[in-house]
């Protein structure tokens, strides 16, 4: 991982409130793997004291630059949307464990909900380079919110789209589309990114069909490098750090809804200490 001051060389609002930034960093672009992320100080002053914000690496310009794709949802992303070309952003990366794939894979399916296209476009480009055949399925609420459709169409064997209002492609959710088509496509592996509920349903379908399923999840982060233990995700093998062990996990391992406090035994302060005699 590197800490760099990365110059912004392009900025584009590809859809209302959704921005694509290209940042110069030979170091990060050389070592980045699909599914990894960068931890960004939003704005060049940070005088309001904001923690860094994590963003997937959306694409790399080999050996030179990388891109992020983000939606304005709050103060950090709002600040980030105001950067100007030639501003420099303080970026740490590449971070985390990305998607696993091997050139032996016969067919893959990339499934994105909304901004979930962010890490998957990088993966699509890598798979193409490695001659791995894949399908893509993109979902959004409306046609305007459907992102990167043309890019996936260029790379994938077949690209499906689903919109919840039926304004483009299949009418309904991408999960419904998956359930209707999975037995025909029969991918060996599914790669997915999007809202947690969507990832849960995709993982369940994948498990039903015995398909390997890798999902990229989100958690609030402070350090982004594995030091603060703040970004834990509940898995069937115990707590894992989203920033260091993830953000890509096997769908089968995740305790879906594990962050609902009632579902797991609370491991609070009164830990295995009852019998020890106190010298009090």
């Amino acid at each position, binding site marked *: *991982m590197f*800490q760099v001051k990365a110059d912004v060389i392009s900025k584009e609002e590809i859809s209302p409130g959704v921005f694509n930034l290209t940042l110069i960093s030979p170091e990060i672009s050389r070592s980045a793997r699909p599914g990894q992320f960068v931890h960004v*100080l939003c704005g060049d002053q*940070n005088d*309001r*004291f*904001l*923690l*860094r914000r994590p963003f997937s690496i959306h694409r790399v310009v080999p050996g030179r630059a990388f891109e992020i794709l983000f939606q304005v949802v709050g103060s950090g992303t709002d600040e980030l949307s105001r950067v100007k070309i030639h501003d420099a952003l*303080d970026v*740490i990366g590449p971070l985390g464990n990305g998607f696993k794939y091997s050139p032996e894979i016969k067919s893959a399916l990339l499934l994105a909900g909304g901004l979930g296209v962010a890490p998957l476009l990088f993966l699509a480009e890598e798979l193409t380079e490695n001659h791995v055949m894949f399908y893509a399925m993109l979902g959004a609420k409306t046609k305007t919110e459907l992102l990167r459709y043309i890019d996936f169409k260029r790379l994938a064997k077949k690209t499906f789209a689903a919109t919840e209002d039926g304004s483009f492609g299949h009418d309904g959710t991408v999960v419904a589309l998956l359930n209707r088509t999975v037995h025909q496509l029969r991918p060996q592996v599914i790669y997915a990114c999007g809202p947690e509920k969507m990832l849960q349903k995709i993982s369940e379908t994948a498990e039903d069909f015995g398909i390997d399923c890798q999902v990229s999840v989100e*958690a*609030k*982060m*402070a*350090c*982004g*490098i*594995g*030091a*603060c*233990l*703040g*970004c*834990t*995700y*509940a898995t069937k093998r*115990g*707590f894992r750090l989203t920033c260091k062990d993830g953000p890509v996990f096997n769908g089968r391992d995740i305790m879906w809804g*594990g*962050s609902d*406090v009632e579902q*797991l035994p*609370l*491991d*609070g*302060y*009164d*830990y*295995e*200490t*009852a019998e*020890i*005699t*106190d*010298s*009090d």
Partner: protein
Amino acid sequence: MSVNLSVTLAGIKLKNPVMPASGTFGAGREFSEFFDVGRLGAIVAKTVTLKPREGNMPPRICETTSGMLNSIGLQNEGLEYFLKHDLPYMRKFKIPIIVNIAGNTLEEYAQICRDLKGIEGVSAIELNISCPNIKAGGIAFGASSRLAEQVTAAARYNTDLPLIVKLTPNVYNISKIARAVVSAGADAVSLINTLVGMSIDINTFKPQLANYTGGLSGPAIKPVAVRMVWEVAQTVNVPIIGIGGIMTAEDAIEFFLAGATAVAIGTANFINPTAMIDIINGIERFLSERGLTDIRQLVGKVRL
């Protein structure tokens, strides 16, 4: 003109007065990718407990105005693992190692102190006394001067290592607690730990943390921390490690003026992994710009 940044703290010599705050630096592995950890005055390990602890349920952190809340819940692999894996790693940096410990009973604190006896590389023990004493109805050791005194005495009885006691700010009168731990044998005190806080998501009506409440850290707590360091400096004559919201060298200078001999940096490490190096360089610059030659010329020099 060269500037002397070295200080002596509880009998340990530090080449400069800047160290990480426990729990924000792990064992230094991640940060060693960003800078030479050996440049720090000391390394303070994450709180270790006798047995492994899984920590609290997620979500564990949330950002607040000029600060953050955390409810990590002292997640750690336990003392045995620490001694086998983390301590040997930290020894590589060749700087003093301060081991921060916690327990839920006096006996646990005492046991860890005994287990640290004669272990190579441990320069001092820091007691995290912000944990609830389960035998005293869950009230934090650090919240009562009687409990604080007892836990310090239990540790003191079981170790010859320099003993630092880390005070919690969630008390009415921190000077009283400081006096109690010093009378029980603390060689130094560090303050402050986090302030208990809460944040609620107004869209879902749910608390932001699964644990409902958490510890507030970052710039938001700095004025509270400076005040407490200043008060404690009036009360006891042991060295103080000032902690709380230090982001820059200027922030650190405030703590020295209030009476701290050294400072520890927490949340700032998350925003800028090289923050501590910038702070060391900044302190040096601050002194030389003013024709000062020794960091000790600042300690406690607030003009009232």
